[in-house]
């Protein structure tokens, strides 16, 4: 599958990509006015509470910070200056715990300056996500340069995912950690399940769950990956023992947090608390299958994935978003065609099919999780799918590869990277920057 590029060349590309990514993220963080990212005010307040009061906020005890009331336009339902609940208080503690030391170091700065520093502190999470994308592609298809180039490039240049990594928000951390979980799942499928790997999987999933509840889908994927791994290679322990080990580690790490949440809100994810404090944003008129089969739901989420920057105020051209949908549909069609194409697969390569299937399942589960959240809450968002961005990018590029003849792939990978850059330039030069800095 190699088209002649050396590993050294790929590494050089990756380094250039990461440098460009970091520069882009710094630019995005600086270009975006203070607290205009998704829920930045609320997350900032959460970090401040952890840093100053050494405790996690709750919906019942904490409110949105009155000193940041000027930024109420970038929050959910901040009507009462002093009594609106801190609606992000249901999020797990890891992000706030990681950011609290940064906050403490620069605590004498103004909130605006501090939030710029906190934005910058999130950028490494994005770097990890891009790196894992590269590792996933190289692990699954070690000789395929097309995927090794395009998968990390698409992840690095996906406008909304990278935007989140330049904001005060736990999404980037959750995405990075969940990407590591996916990478560990793929390694497990390839190398077979062992007790140690099961424990590692559990630890990664547990840490990811401490970053954001969206990682809960990992609990479904772990047994599948362990099962696929033990089928291929002789296991060091029984499958049941491995699964128990994974879940045990998860419980060890997340258990205290879930216990705290259950005691505070009545359920481990705090959904009851959210429903109680955001009554205008809950609903009872939708069902899971309705939203799953709904075109409007899908299109809204797709639109959020590419546009709607700055607290959904900045809408990029629908034609551009539709064009991107068309391109994605082409990639998905390629994936389906590749799946159905009757080709003989060597026994040594079958683990790849299983690993790709696990990644596809991760994507499907993530979408279903977003749908399920939407059944109860109006404000379900595409961000809840971002943790599987590495898997999505890999699957889409795999689909795209189906349509491209071998001898054209070098040109095609350059075209993909250039197209991704062009999309970013168009979005920022055409919409985001002119919105915040009109002439």
């Amino acid at each position, binding site marked *: 599958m190699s088209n002649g590029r050396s590993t050294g060349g790929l590494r050089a590309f990756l380094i250039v990509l990461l440098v460009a990514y970091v520069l882009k993220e710094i630019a995005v963080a600086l270009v975006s006015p203070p607290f205009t990212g998704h829920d930045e005010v609320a997350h900032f307040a959460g970090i401040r509470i952890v840093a100053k009061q050494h405790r996690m906020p709750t919906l019942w005890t904490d409110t949105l910070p009155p000193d940041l009331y000027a930024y109420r336009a970038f929050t959910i339902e901040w009507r009462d200056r002093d009594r609106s609940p801190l609606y992000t208080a249901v999020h797990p503690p890891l992000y706030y715990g990681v950011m609290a030391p940064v906050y403490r170091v620069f605590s004498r700065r103004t909130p605006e300056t501090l939030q710029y520093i906190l934005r910058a502190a999130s950028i490494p999470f994005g770097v990890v996500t891009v790196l894992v994308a590269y590792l996933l592609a190289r692990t699954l298809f070690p000789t395929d340069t097309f995927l090794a180039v395009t998968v990390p490039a698409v992840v690095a240049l996906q406008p909304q995912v990278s935007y989140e990594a330049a904001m005060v928000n736990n999404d980037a951390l959750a995405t990075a950690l969940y990407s590591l979980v996916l990478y560990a799942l793929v390694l497990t499928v390839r190398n077979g399940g062992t007790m140690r790997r099961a424990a590692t999987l559990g630890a990664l999933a547990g840490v990811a769950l401490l970053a954001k509840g969206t990682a809960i889908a990992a609990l479904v994927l772990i047994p599948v990956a362990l099962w696929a791994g033990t089928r291929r290679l002789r296991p060091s322990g029984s499958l049941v023992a491995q699964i128990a080990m994974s879940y045990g580690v998860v419980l060890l790490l997340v258990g205290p947090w879930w216990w705290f949440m259950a005691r505070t809100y009545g359920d481990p994810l705090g959904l009851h608390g959210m429903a109680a404090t955001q009554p205008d944003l809950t609903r009872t008129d939708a069902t899971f299958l309705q939203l*799953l089969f709904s*075109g409007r739901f*899908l299109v809204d989420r797709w639109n959020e994935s590419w546009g709607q920057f700055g607290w959904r105020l900045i809408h990029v051209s*629908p034609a551009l978003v539709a064009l991107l949908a068309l391109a994605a549909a082409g990639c998905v069609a390629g994936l389906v065609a590749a799946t*159905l194409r009757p*080709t003989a697969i060597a026994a040594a390569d079958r683990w790849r099919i299983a690993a790709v299937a696990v990644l596809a399942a991760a994507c499907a589960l993530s979408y279903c999780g977003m749908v399920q959240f939407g059944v109860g809450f109006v404000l379900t968002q595409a961000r809840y799918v971002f943790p599987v961005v590495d898997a999505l990018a890999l699957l889409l590029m795999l689909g795209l590869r189906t349509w491209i003849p071998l001898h054209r792939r070098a040109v095609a990978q350059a075209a993909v990277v250039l197209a991704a850059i062009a999309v970013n330039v168009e979005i920022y030069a055409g919409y985001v920057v002119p919105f915040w800095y009109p002439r």
Partner: protein
Amino acid sequence: MTRGRRIGIAAMWALAAFAAWRMQLFAPWRAFGTFDTFGSFDHPFHLARAETLVRSLLHGRSLRWIANHQGGYPAEFYPFGWAWVEAALWFAGLGRVPLPIVHRAATVGLFLLPGAMFAWMAARDRWPITVPLSAFALHVAVPGEMWSGGYSELVYVGLAPSVAAAIAAVASMTAASAAFASGSRRACAVSAAAAAAAIWCNPRAVVALVVCVGAAWVVSVRPADWRRPTIQLLTIAGIASLLAVPELLSLARFGRLYYFIRYTGYDSSLDYLAVSIETVSLPGFVLAGVGAAAAFRLRHERTISYAAAAALVAYAAATLLLSFGMPSAIEQLETTRLMPVQRLLMIYLAAVGLHALAAAAIARWQVRRLGPPAVEAVAVAALLTIYVGPERLMPFWSRGLFPVHRTGTPAFGFLHQVLKLADEAAPTGTAILIAGTPNDDRPQLWAPVDVDRPLFYDDWMWYWHTRHRGPYDPTRTSRYDLARVAEIFDREYLQRNGIGAVVAAPSVQLAADAAPALKREFGGTYGLYVVRDPVRIVTLGSRSASGQTIENERIVADGTSDGDYALIRRNWFPRWRVAVNGRPASIIETDDGYMRVPVPRGRVHLELVYALEPLDSLARLLMAIGVVAAAGLGSVGDTRRDPAEPLDGGQQVTRREEQSPDRRAQLALRASSMPEPPRT
């Protein structure tokens, strides 16, 4: 016929029977003293149109001007194609079946008609019976949005003409594709007749016909053999134009007089994409894409599917172009209303896609004991369970066959009774105003079924000009602002429109009670008010004409004039001709769209006739020629091969082709879908 095919056909019949039962086709005719039919949104309007047509036909006249709707409108501005179908059914029942029940049956029949069409399309393409079964199940299960052509548009909103036109347009494309592929003259005639039916039901269908039949021609024409399909295309276009020439010529002549309110539109290309998916559901949309791809791949063997795929691509492009690229190209076109045709094409291709996927998957994984039909049967069962099953799976508005408002309710019963009393209370030569409704629907538009006289409404749903005066913005809506409802109970409004009685729903009765020009007879679900000192529809100067006859295409008034103008409170249109005391006179259009005629002092006999002009007669003659041409073409035996047979006569498969993996999958798809050997 194979056993599988018999089972499939039986399943389609069972599904049709189930859908008909859920739509209460078999319910008793009457409930609460009134005929029980669909009563939501536009149903009453279309039922009233059918009733008006039947009455006109019973009087030996074709209906060209409709007098009972807000001052009147010309038939060609809202053509009566579908109303003719309902009238034909009524005559077929010898008048024994009440028209509301005919409307119920016709609506159910129209909803089920795509099942037959899908079966026809699939049979021509030699797909197995599971393909039309899947398509029909998707059609039944997914209601679509309000303008998408499915259950929501037809049964809930009641837009039967739009849906009928869409079905006819796709049928025309199918027949045209068969004609291009086989040379069948009969298929040409069917295509032309279906195209004309589409235009008569809804002139907007011209867009669909041009795009879909055009796409079928484009994909069938070959450099070596372009002449025959092109001649057939021209034949179809020519005969269809002849059959629809009275409608098309009238629109060409008078279209400038027609103001069309665009109520809906796509916000963006993403909005169009969302509606496209919503129309057939996400799985249906994805499968339609797969089906289109499969159809392009099997283009030599499945000409109908190939034409449908090409038409879908062209139609989507045309919709986007007309929505965003050239939004003013067709003034009287809401592009959202193009969706019904797209829905039918997508549903058919989704079924093809499901079959293609099932066949490919079974070939890929070599599941020998399972055929594609089994997979499709499971998909159909799942679809029906999800969409027609328990409400916890799919909520009310998203589920198929959801219950809609019916006319068999106490409120409708009251309305009929009060209308009859209003008809007795209003003096001859005056109109009745019906204001307000007890719910969101428009039951008042059923009034022409009960009373044969001019009517006005506070919400008249559809109109054609902007000169009608009242508390509303005529460029944006066809309903009065109920916050200003008192203005329509003013003497000035009542006199301006020649209103003699008012039927008022509770929401407007307070305003009616306070109006000095009205005298309350009684209140309730529908209250009745009579107008004090009413003015009749025709006045001669300051005096009301003593004798007045207001018919659809004729207005007669007698009386004494002081030598001023006669004011006829009916909408002006160029076809109206007037004779005063037997002598032709000129008609002046008033500022509010009515007619004024100069009359002499003394006795006046005024007669207005909605004239059949020479061009109208010519159009009728051309239409008759079209009927003869279509019948002649249809009755001439086809000299070429069977239309269902592909032109290549079934491809010969070489051993080398068999060895290609792609070809193997293709062959698996072919083999799985060809239960019978090709006929020769």
